[in-house]
């Protein structure tokens, strides 16, 4: 490098060609000087981490459950691939489904990275490329960026280089979807992993940029609480509803409202992650959130059909495609603010504010595309006030009256068409019968489980607006939907990792349960409360983000407190943390990376494989995406998987059509190397999957505890984890698990209070030799306890290898 100098030079004979090497040399020198040690995979290309993926995929089998047995990607088809047959291009069912899964992953990663690019443009424009990235008490500002790209960004401008890399790789991955190239499922799988990893870089870029510029809480364990729920909205006031994921334009609305003293006179509320990020805006230092959260995507149609919003502003990602059509019915103008959603509306970005407001309030236009955020900031709140008056005067009604309700419920012929069409097969017909008899409770229960997709209405031969019926019947419970959610705190700080890292690696903190993703739950939102409540009582660290973070705030305990009010938000055993919105999921993987960096002093720069191997073998963390539905949820989960973090999905997650499941009976797959000498060590099957589904919460509880077990657990840690595994299995399944003994290396691994009872079982049922005088195990265990062992799956990391 020393021979290269920054500057410009010309090549003789090519006078017109100038090569500018300033940024290249500068970047290389900066990386080398600042990071010290640099690992082997700086900005890996598609094949850069293939060996690592293959190691994972050797143990965790891709399991395909196709949604549709055909492929219709090109005009050779449609091809019947049933029974793993080949299509006209030679791809088989496995390959095609791996390709389909990869496509979902890169779609999700593109959504986050596209969001990041939009935000970064906007923020650099507003704050300048040199704006410092202050994200809280940390020396590792962007762990995902650093581990993947080898760079340590310090300013907004530094993030562009990492985002350029992500975008380039995503294009390369998308190119692989084209017909007639990759034929092997395993390489589509490796590519999916690559996409998942890129997603966490893209998310991190988006979130640290907004944390730094928009005065969001910075690794703040005292982040304030925000109101949440349809019941918190005062419908007497003008109501402005914002839907989506990108808070950029909404900040202008908030600023305008404050500058014009409108905050008290109108309601600003949001759905999905924009809502969460609105509450983060300018709450650094504990300021009161400037907006209310209505809830998740599952509330979109419900909120619109309630007739409460006067104006709707949408930005990007999880926004229903029919917002404009639905809103039009109820005289709610819709403003689109991002090129991802334009709904066929006229572009009014360059028009006069008064003209836009006139056209919308007169109903000449149903909505407007406004890409100029200054203009949006003024139009949206002013229009909301105007529309509130107009809509009240016109007496816009949405839900059916009592008489209409009675007529609708009696119109039902109980054909069950709606139930078959409903994604969760909800018992609509019985609820209709009960309502006819004056009992609204079945509909109220249904309201909690209904994701407001509207499919039932289209199926009904009697044209019953089923969703409106559900919502009308549930007015009482909707009014009571009032909760609290912790404002997203952002990263986990270095001091927190320093304190807690050792407990996580030794297992004395039994694990991290990261509840992420959307709201397509099999059995209503209360599921999340049950999981968090149980695991928090057992001292797991529970991390929340996105829609899951919102739904958790909707339930109170017997003392009328939400779990956010009950538990502190410090990263420490038994605490509950909301990292933030969808893009804040990157802080969950970042926390695992930081454990390796800070507690274990591993180099993370451009060193993905070593760190992922560390996480897989030593950090007991499990992701839960109980209601995952979006493509983004698949990319977030896959990014966790490549980093060695297993993820459990709810039953709807089976429709992602691919899981990664280990086979505990294949004994040769459950071995690691000891990095001290390269010797092979047997380990029990945990984590026994990287991605799977569970049928019910009750089934998932013991799965959580079991899959936090890691080879690095010391005996205190293993004892704690095994105690929870056995207890949760007994509590939720009524049985002691079949494989509990496989996690016992020594008598000290056994739950303290039940040591004698379990030693007896080991002797009598499994034939283990026990020394009853010393209460010791003499023989039997297949894995050994050696606290100084260095478990690894990567041979090059072993000393004597």
């Amino acid at each position, binding site marked *: 490098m020393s021979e290269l100098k920054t500057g410009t030079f010309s090549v003789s004979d090519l006078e017109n060609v100038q090569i500018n090497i300033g940024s290249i040399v500068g970047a290389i020198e900066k990386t080398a000087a600042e990071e010290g040690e640099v690992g082997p995979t700086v900005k890996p290309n598609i094949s850069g981490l293939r060996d690592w993926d293959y190691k994972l995929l050797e143990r965790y089998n891709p399991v395909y459950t196709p949604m549709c047995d055909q492929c219709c990607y090109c005009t050779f088809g449609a091809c019947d691939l049933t029974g793993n047959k080949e299509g006209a291009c030679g791809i088989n069912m496995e390959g095609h489904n791996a390709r389909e899964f990869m496509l979902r992953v890169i779609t999700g990663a593109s959504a986050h990275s596209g969001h990041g690019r939009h935000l970064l443009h906007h923020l650099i424009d507003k704050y300048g490329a040199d704006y410092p990235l202050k994200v809280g008490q940390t020396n590792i500002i962007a762990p995902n960026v650093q581990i993947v790209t080898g760079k340590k960004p310090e300013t907004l401008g530094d993030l562009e280089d990492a985002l350029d890399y992500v975008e380039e790789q995503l294009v390369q991955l998308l190119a692989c979807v084209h017909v007639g190239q990759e034929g092997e499922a395993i390489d589509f799988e490796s590519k999916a992993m690559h996409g998942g990893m890129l997603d966490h870089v893209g998310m991190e870029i988006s979130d640290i940029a907004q944390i730094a510029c928009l005065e969001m809480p910075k690794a703040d364990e005292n982040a304030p609480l925000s109101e949440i729920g349809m019941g918190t909205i005062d419908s007497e006031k003008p109501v402005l509803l914002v839907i989506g994921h990108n808070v950029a334009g909404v900040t202008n609305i908030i600023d305008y409202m404050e500058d014009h003293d409108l905050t008290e006179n109108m309601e600003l509320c949001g759905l999905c992650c924009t809502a969460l990020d609105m509450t983060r805006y300018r709450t650094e230092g504990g300021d009161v959130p400037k907006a209310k959260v209505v809830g998740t995507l599952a509330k979109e149609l419900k909120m619109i059909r309630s007739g409460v919003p006067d104006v709707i502003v949408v930005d990007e990602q999880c926004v229903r495609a029919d917002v404009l059509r639905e809103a039009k019915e109820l005289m709610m103008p819709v403003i689109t603010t991002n090129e991802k959603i334009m709904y066929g509306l006229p572009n009014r970005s360059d028009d006069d504010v008064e003209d836009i407001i006139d056209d919308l309030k007169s109903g000449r236009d149903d909505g407007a595309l406004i890409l100029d955020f200054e203009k949006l900031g003024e139009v949206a709140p002013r229009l909301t006030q105007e529309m509130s008056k107009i809509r009240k005067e016109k007496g816009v009604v949405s839900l059916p009256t009592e008489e209409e309700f009675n007529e609708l419920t009696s119109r039902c012929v109980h054909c069950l068409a709606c139930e078959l069409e409903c994604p969760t097969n909800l018992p609509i017909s019985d609820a209709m019968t009960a309502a006819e008899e004056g009992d609204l409770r079945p509909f109220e229960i249904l309201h909690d489980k209904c994701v407001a997709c509207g499919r039932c209405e289209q199926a009904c031969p009697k044209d019953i607006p089923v969703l409106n019926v559900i919502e009308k019947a549930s007015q009482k419970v909707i009014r009571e939907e009032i909760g609290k959610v912790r404002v997203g705190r952002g990263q986990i700080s270095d001091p927190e990792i320093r304190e807690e890292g050792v407990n996580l690696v030794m297992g004395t903190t039994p694990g991290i349960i990261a509840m992420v993703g959307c709201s397509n739950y099999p059995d209503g939102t209360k599921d999340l409360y049950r999981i968090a409540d149980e695991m928090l009582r057992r001292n797991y660290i529970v991390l929340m983000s996105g829609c899951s973070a919102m739904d958790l705030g909707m339930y109170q305990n017997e003392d009328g407190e939400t779990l956010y009010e009950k538990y502190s938000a410090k990263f420490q055993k038994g605490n509950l943390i909301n990292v933030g919105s969808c893009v804040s999921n990157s802080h969950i993987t970042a926390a695992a990376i930081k454990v390796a960096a800070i507690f274990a002093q591993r180099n993370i720069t451009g060193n993905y494989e070593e760190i992922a191997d560390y996480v897989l073998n030593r950090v007991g963390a499990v992701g839960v995406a109980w209601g995952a539905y979006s493509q983004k949820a698949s990319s977030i989960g896959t990014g966790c998987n490549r980093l060695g973090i297993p993820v459990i999905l709810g039953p709807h997650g*089976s429709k992602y059509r691919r899981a990664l499941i280990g086979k505990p009976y294949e004994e040769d797959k459950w071995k690691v190397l000891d990095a001290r000498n390269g010797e092979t060590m047997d380990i029990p099957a945990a984590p026994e999957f990287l991605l799977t*589904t569970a049928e019910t919460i009750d089934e998932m509880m013991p799965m959580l505890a079991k899959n936090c077990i890691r080879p690095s657990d010391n005996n205190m840690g293993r004892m704690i984890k095994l105690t929870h595994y056995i207890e949760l299995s007994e509590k939720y399944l009524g049985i002691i698990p079949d494989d509990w003994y496989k996690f016992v290396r020594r008598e000290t691994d056994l739950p303290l209070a039940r040591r004698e009872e379990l030693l007896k079982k080991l002797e009598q049922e499994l034939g283990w030799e026990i020394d009853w005088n010393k209460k010791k195990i003499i023989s039997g265990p297949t894995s050994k306890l050696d606290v100084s062992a260095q478990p690894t799956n990567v041979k090059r990391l072993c000393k004597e290898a």
Partner: protein
Amino acid sequence: MVDVTKNLKVYTTYGPKTAKGTKPAIVAKMIEKAKRPLFVVGSEVLEEELLARAKAIAKKGIPVAATGHSIKGFIDEEGVDAKYINIHFLGTFLCDPKWGGLDDNGCYDLIILLGHKKYYINQVLSGLKNFQT
């Protein structure tokens, strides 16, 4: 006996090869002929009436794979051989001839399903349909 094939709505994976309705007598014959049948029950079996039927079937000597948290309904039940397993794992293992089964006696040749979420079992069956060997 009721003719269950009448007015039957098949809720199944889309595609060229879908499920068909058939008469109980034919199903009974299939079970009778099977060498290693497995009765796979989901959590919805815990509803009282369905559970009683499931137990009656299991007592005919068919081993039970209790998925979800359905095992709760079979604890200490005389004459029922039930073991817990996750359905996604079960679907995977059933495609693997090397799997020893729930009792180490080998894989199964017929599965009977009861009490599952339709959309979920649909996916598991789609995996089996395409990848069983």
